[in-house]
């Protein structure tokens, strides 16, 4: 994760927000609910609270706009940029803006919430059957007043459940008419209008008068988008007009004719050939909940993350069952600390539904709020092989390549739960199984057998003579011997036979180095040993570090904690642990995941 330069953050925890205006794409209640859930994403893992206010200046002012909307950072029409937000601070700082040239949905297509009728405001059910015909949009059939309606179950014929769809004939948003419907025709600036219009405005929003004369009464409201409203094109927000004529042919549904990209479009007048008015038909749209949760992350002080699964990754992708990534949790807890309440609700809510469904969510907000990591990684060079030190010798025991067979360990204390451990002295992979060492005990986890955590086993039984607390261990991939490190001493085990302890200065590691935090096997015969902010490359065969070392860890392993407690190779990726968390790095030195040791690696419940 990244924070903004200077770690900009709010100086109080009880934040307020205000929604200045609403998108015509969604019912106001749906938008309010999405914003509420988006804030809850963050309040669930921090001490922050969010309160909506309806007047005055809030910490976070939220608005919809398009193109240049007053802040000097214009949006770009449909698609592309979706929204932006400013880091914490006074004035425009902290505010979040959403591009209203997008189609805002809950990410999976139009959500048409009904009003009135007999379905209690339920969403339309598309398709639905009316008088034996199937419909996938709101219709005016069966009515004489022109009000669009839909069934809220699969069959109106069977269930008779219905409601009215968004329409300017039913209500308006905002303005100064308390939601009154449009009155058609109305007069504006001496001209008569019988549809909503954008005339007189520079922001593209469609409006109407709510009396017969705007010129006289100055009463107006904004038109809600119909379910057939188009995006883009040259008549944003206008509904499709069916049937329409295109190149002399009549069309009663959206079509991709005339286009090479396959996108569906429609005319917004009855004749494209004469009027040239058109737009794209509704697609899945963008989830206002997901985008808002991301933007509010900025409003709280988080910059973009390079972790693709993180909410703060800059690109949009729809996920149905949203869950905050540990990278996001770490970022926000770095700024504001942990959620103090132990019995907090989980945010594992569905991104696609307006009502949150809280589910148990064991990964939420645990951990100790680690220190920030280094800045975003910059390209580094692959460590180059260096010639080994001349005159290095090998001992006979180091040539041994056949380890003694080891007997299967027997758990000495099955009741001792690895998941109850705060951290581990050492984590390393031995014989394909991850081993977690702590205070004379160890547990194993096999990714192959899916048998879960095994143990606790006694270190003394398996590797007699080792101290109870070891700092690092690794298995030589060639000889299968296991190297253990504790303080400035190390042991080499072949089965249960040990050589050692010997001082790590014998390996060529100077007195300035403290404990060895971990090891990464680098191909055959080479192992990187980490200590402090440096690492050495060990030639395992000659048991001597190569020339040119130590090197600064940050030069190559950029973006991982430099004070990692454990460093190990697992499933061909580098893992650096600190506190409850691990940073996973690809062989190309990109941090591709930050997660919990217990929940993601140990699979603790």
């Amino acid at each position: 994760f990244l924070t903004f330069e200077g770690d900009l953050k709010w100086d109080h925890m009880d934040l307020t927000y205000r929604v200045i205006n609403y998108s015509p794409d969604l019912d106001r209640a749906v938008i309010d609910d999405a914003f509420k859930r988006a804030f809850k994403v963050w309040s669930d893992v921090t001490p922050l609270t969010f309160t909506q206010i309806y007047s005055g200046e809030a910490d976070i002012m939220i608005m919809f706009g398009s193109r240049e909307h007053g802040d000097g950072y214009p949006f770009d029409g449909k698609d592309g940029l979706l929204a932006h937000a400013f880091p914490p601070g006074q004035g425009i700082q902290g505010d979040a803006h959403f591009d209203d040239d997008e189609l805002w949905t809950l990410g999976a297509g139009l959500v048409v919430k009904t009003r009135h009728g007999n379905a209690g405001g339920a969403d339309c059910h598309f398709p639905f059957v009316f008088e034996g015909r199937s419909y996938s949009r709101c219709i005016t059939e069966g009515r004489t007043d022109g009000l669009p309606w839909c069934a809220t179950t699969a069959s109106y014929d069977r269930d008779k459940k219905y409601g009215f769809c968004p329409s300017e004939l039913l209500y308006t948003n905002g303005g100064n008419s308390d939601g009154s419907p449009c009155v058609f025709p109305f007069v504006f600036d001496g001209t008569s209008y019988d549809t909503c219009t954008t005339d007189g405005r520079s922001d593209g929003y469609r409006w109407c008068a709510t009396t017969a004369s705007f010129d006289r009464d100055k009463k107006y409201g904004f038109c809600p988008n119909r379910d057939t409203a188009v995006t883009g094109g040259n008549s944003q927000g206008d509904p499709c007009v069916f049937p329409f004529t295109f190149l002399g042919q009549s069309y009663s549904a959206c079509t991709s004719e005339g286009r090479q990209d396959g996108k569906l479009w429609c005319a917004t007048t009855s004749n494209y050939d004469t009027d040239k008015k058109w737009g794209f038909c509704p697609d899945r749209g963008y989830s206002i909940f997901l985008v808002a949760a991301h933007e509010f992350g900025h409003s709280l002080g988080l910059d973009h993350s390079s972790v693709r699964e993180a909410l703060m990754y800059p690109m949009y992708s729809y996920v149905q069952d949203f869950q905050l990534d540990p990278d996001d949790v770490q970022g926000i807890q770095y700024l504001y600390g942990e959620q103090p309440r132990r019995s907090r609700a989980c945010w594992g809510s569905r991104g696609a539904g307006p009502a949150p469904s809280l589910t148990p969510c064991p990964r939420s907000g645990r951990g100790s709020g680690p220190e920030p990591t280094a800045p975003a990684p910059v390209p580094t060079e692959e460590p180059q092989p260096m010639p080994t030190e001349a005159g290095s010798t090998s001992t006979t025991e180091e040539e041994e390549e056949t380890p003694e067979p080891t007997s299967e360990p027997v758990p000495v204390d099955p009741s001792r739960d690895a998941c109850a451990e705060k951290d581990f002295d050492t984590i390393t992979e031995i014989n394909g199984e991850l081993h977690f060492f702590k205070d004379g005990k160890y547990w194993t986890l096999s990714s192959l057998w899916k048998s879960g955590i095994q143990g606790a086993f006694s270190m003394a039984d398996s590797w007699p003579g080792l101290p109870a607390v070891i700092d690092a261990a690794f298995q030589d991939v060639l000889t299968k011997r296991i190297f253990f490190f504790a303080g400035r001493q190390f042991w080499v085990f072949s089965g249960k036979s040990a050589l050692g302890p010997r001082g790590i200065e014998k390996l060529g590691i100077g007195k300035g180095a403290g404990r060895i935090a971990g090891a990464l096997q680098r191909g055959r015969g080479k192992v990187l040993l980490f200590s402090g902010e440096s690492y050495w490359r060990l030639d395992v065969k000659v048991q001597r570090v190569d020339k040119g070392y130590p090197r600064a860890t940050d030069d190559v392993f950029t973006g991982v904690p430099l004070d990692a407690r454990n460093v190990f190779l697992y499933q061909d990726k580098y893992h650096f642990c600190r506190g409850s968390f691990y940073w996973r790095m690809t062989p190309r030195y990109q941090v591709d995941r930050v997660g919990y040791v217990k929940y993601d690696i140990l699979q603790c419940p």
Partner: protein
Amino acid sequence: SPLQSQPSPLQSKPQAVVTFPGELVSMLSDLELAEAEAEARTGSKQVALGKALRRMQKQLGLEETGQLDAGTLEAMRAPRCGVPDVGT
């Protein structure tokens, strides 16, 4: 039961491609577009696109090829947040 009719070959008709008003259509290739953008910003054709691409690829967790490869183009075309990844 449904009639078991033989499928008939689709009547292919010439596809008319229309330039829709209000739609931005670029005739430039991806590389030309990127270079034109860089030139417009720097006033110079001597721009190190590869270096900039690597930096962006690293920032976005992509493979660092320094090329306008498929993954990079996909990321560039993806809908995204308008907060800049790198200041200035």
